[in-house]
């Protein structure tokens, strides 16, 4: 299994909703990432978990809350989002420092 699986593929939510994005990999990778990508822009790093501990938080607003319940799962909890948070949210994982990142196909999020 060489895939990173993200669910849901599409999500529409209101500004008062609470939702979660999920990411799963069974490659034994010990680092997992959340990236945000606006239309026609490059991905921007949000969070990195290394060995299930949050190692990088790129000054992301608290309305985004990551969680890594175990080495295979990564969640992104969403609460009170703004319309400008609408974007493609990409999850990725990597085994070691010199290895490539495997990306999921993303969750396309629309905040109304």
């Amino acid at each position: 299994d060489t895939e990173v699986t993200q669910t849901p593929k599409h999500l529409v939510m209101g500004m008062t909703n609470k939702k979660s994005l999920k990411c799963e990999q069974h490659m034994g990778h010990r680092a997992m990432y959340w990236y945000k990508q606006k239309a026609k822009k490059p991905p921007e790093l949000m969070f990195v978990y290394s060995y299930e501990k949050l190692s990088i938080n790129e000054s992301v607003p608290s309305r985004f809350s990551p969680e890594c319940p175990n080495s295979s799962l990564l969640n992104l909890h969403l609460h009170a989002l703004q319309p400008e948070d609408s974007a493609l949210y990409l999850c990725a994982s990597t085994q070691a420092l010199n290895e490539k990142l495997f990306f999921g196909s993303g969750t396309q999020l629309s905040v109304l």
Partner: protein
Amino acid sequence: AQSVTQPDIHITVSEGASLELRCNYSYGATPYLFWYVQSPGQGLQLLLKYFSGDTLVQGIKGFEAEFKRSQSSFNLRKPSVHWSDAAEYFCAVGLHQTGANNLFFGTGTRLTVIP
């Protein structure tokens, strides 16, 4: 501070023609360099990477890239483009922080292939 520059926002080539996508980086040490491709609404797929050694690296789908330290460049090439190569291409610099890879992406080059 590190940065990645892709000077071409959009490139159009004819099917069967050769392709070169430019990438320049700014980083204090020898970086880890990557090229990723992204189809619309999809995640990113790694084409190739450079860490050390031979400066000409081969990737998937017939792509190659050459690392030129003197020019701080890592340009992507393909001798003959196929219609399926139409996509967005991102160059990225990899940094190692706290045991994880932190990729900084260029702004991307959109490739259009005409018949």
